């Protein structure tokens, strides 16, 4: 036993004591969302050792930071609404004017987003949309309507998989009903509650982890899904088509944020500048198959990405909207509706 302890203690020490570089940068990131080459390139250019930790959802990121992990990380990559929430919680540091040399590379439409006015805390990382994909072998009618999810034709009833995520389901439902995402109108909220109760009858499951797999295997004929996943499902042989409903669809954007009390603030800014260079962020795009928010990436992109139907909404598509952040009183009603839906 004692011997075992000493050998393993040595093993632990070995893992902990990695080669030391000049500086250090601690990134809190999604898993497999940045290619290793990009990290290596940054390390070589700036002689900064990059340490990565990963989380599996925006909410897990928030919970972990709020439980006391803030102060150990330099940058994180939250989604749009989470940037706003984190800023509201005081978890983000402000990027001062002139601190980012490449800030001008941000495309104009992403330079002043509603979730982070003036890009005070963040830079764009990747963006895409959330809508749903339909199996064309099962249904060949018009799919560009949210009725497919909430009031489906008989062919699709009972074959629908929804994302197991309150934000995505509620935002899509709001688009379907044509009401604001953070409605305070009691009649609208009651109608929303009733509509979801009726729609649930048509749904087979709530699942995010295997959202793509159920489409590829044919277990679900309709699946609420991210654009990148829909593209992968298609490439894996499913005869699915990604819908852009006329009522609108959800747009999401992941952003690199500067965390409060970052232990290596200078390196964090260097890293953000690095990711604003078209060549570097294009490498991320080629890897993750989404879209960047930086100007001048076109020459570095995989040509297949440009024609991908999931990234090119047709003219009939409704407006793309971000998931909105509601105030506490409103959010509590939405939480109640969600609980009613899943009780």
């Amino acid at each position, binding site marked *: 036993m004692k011997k075992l302890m000493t050998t393993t203690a040595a093993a632990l020490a070995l893992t902990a004591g990695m080669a030391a570089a000049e500086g250090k940068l601690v990134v809190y990131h999604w898993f497999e969302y940045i290619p290793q080459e990009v990290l290596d390139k940054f390390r070589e250019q700036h002689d900064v050792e990059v340490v990565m930790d990963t989380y599996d*959802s925006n*909410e897990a990121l928030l919970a972990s930071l709020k439980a006391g992990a803030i102060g150990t990380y330099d940058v994180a990559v939250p989604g749009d609404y989470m940037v706003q929430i984190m800023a*509201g919680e005081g978890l983000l540091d402000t990027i001062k004017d002139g601190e980012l040399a490449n800030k001008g590379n941000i495309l104009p439409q992403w330079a002043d987003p509603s979730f982070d006015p003036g890009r005070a805390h963040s830079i764009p990382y990747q963006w895409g949309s959330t809508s749903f994909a339909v199996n064309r072998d099962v249904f060949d009618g018009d799919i560009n309507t949210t009725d497919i999810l909430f009031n489906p034709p008989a062919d699709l009833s009972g074959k629908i998989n929804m994302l*197991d995520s309150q934000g995505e389901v509620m935002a899509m439902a709001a688009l379907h009903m044509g009401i604001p995402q953070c409605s305070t109108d009691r009649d609208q909220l009651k109608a929303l509650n009733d509509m979801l109760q009726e729609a649930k009858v048509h749904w087979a*499951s709530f699942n995010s982890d295997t959202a793509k797999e159920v489409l590829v*295997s044919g277990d679900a004929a309709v699946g609420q899904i991210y654009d990148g996943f829909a593209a992968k499902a298609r490439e894996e042989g499913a005869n699915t088509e990604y819908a852009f409903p006329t009522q609108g669809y959800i747009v999401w954007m992941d952003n690199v944020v500067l965390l409060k009390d970052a232990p290596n603030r200078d390196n964090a800014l260097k890293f953000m500048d690095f990711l604003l260079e078209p060549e570097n962020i294009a490498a991320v795009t080629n890897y993750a198959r989404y879209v960047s928010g930086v100007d001048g990436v076109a020459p570095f992109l995989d040509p297949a990405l440009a024609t991908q139907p999931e990234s090119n909404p047709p003219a009939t598509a409704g407006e793309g909207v971000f998931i909105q952040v509601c105030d506490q009183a409103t*959010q509590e009603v939405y*939480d109640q509706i969600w609980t009613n839906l899943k*009780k």
Partner: protein
Amino acid sequence: MAGGAATGGSSTSDTYAEARTWLLLPAWVTLGILVLAPVTMMLIYSFLTKEFRGGVIWEFSLSAYDQFFFDRGLFGDDPPRIEWTYIQIFWRSIWQAGAATLLSLVIGFPTAYFIATRAPAQRTFWLFLVTIPYWVNLLIRTVSMKFLLRDQGPLNEALLGIGIISEPLSIVNTNVAVQLGLFYSYLPFMVLPIYAAVERYNFTLSEAAADLYASRWTVLRRILLPSVKPGIIAGCILVFVPSMGSFLAPDLLGGAKNFMIGSLIEEQFKGNAGNWPFGAAASMILLTLVLIILLIFARQQSKAES
């Protein structure tokens, strides 16, 4: 006593009475610091005011428990009525966990018995055989299980092929799938404790009974089962209790259309809701409930013994 259920007072001796402080010290230090302290903190949290989007405000409040037991309508201003939502969720979880435990027992006991009656040198091999699948990640195992059970999956095709059924069985996204998921998640936790008990069983007892013309099944019921009861109880606790709070396998297989306790609590800490006091309160209610169930179980057992 809750303890009696798993430890069965009857075999207590006082051989090591003098050393008991030292024997218990490691457990108290480890669990006291790493479990009791955090759980006490959660108990305190359940009586605090929630902070929007996670966290607590240090002001005493009963609103977490109020939310659990009273329904005040969609907008929180109706006169309070009894809230059935969460009670329903708890009942569903108890029921599913109970079914999974029963299923594990029906499959697990014969397996454990079979292993314990192998030649001594082979037993460890069999134990490994039962636990090796669990070296593979739960998520991967569950996804594969789902693949097997799907409507056009191998199981249905095989059953259709040999003509047992004429229509594919719809298992995925049903309660049965939830129970299968729980059963599959915890099967070795039933087999191993029972094995440890049966391995010790003295077969001369069976022989003596058989000599008195007891049938094989009477021997099983009247002699074998009572003498390996501690193992069976340990196995049932190890399957039932974690099943109550589990969510990954039931959600993946069952479709997550209805909350289990585990997913409800998870949602309070990681979901949009971010209501830590409510999550803490639900956990404390779960803890109390499990303790009560174990207590009833133990009381009946000690009644049966005396």
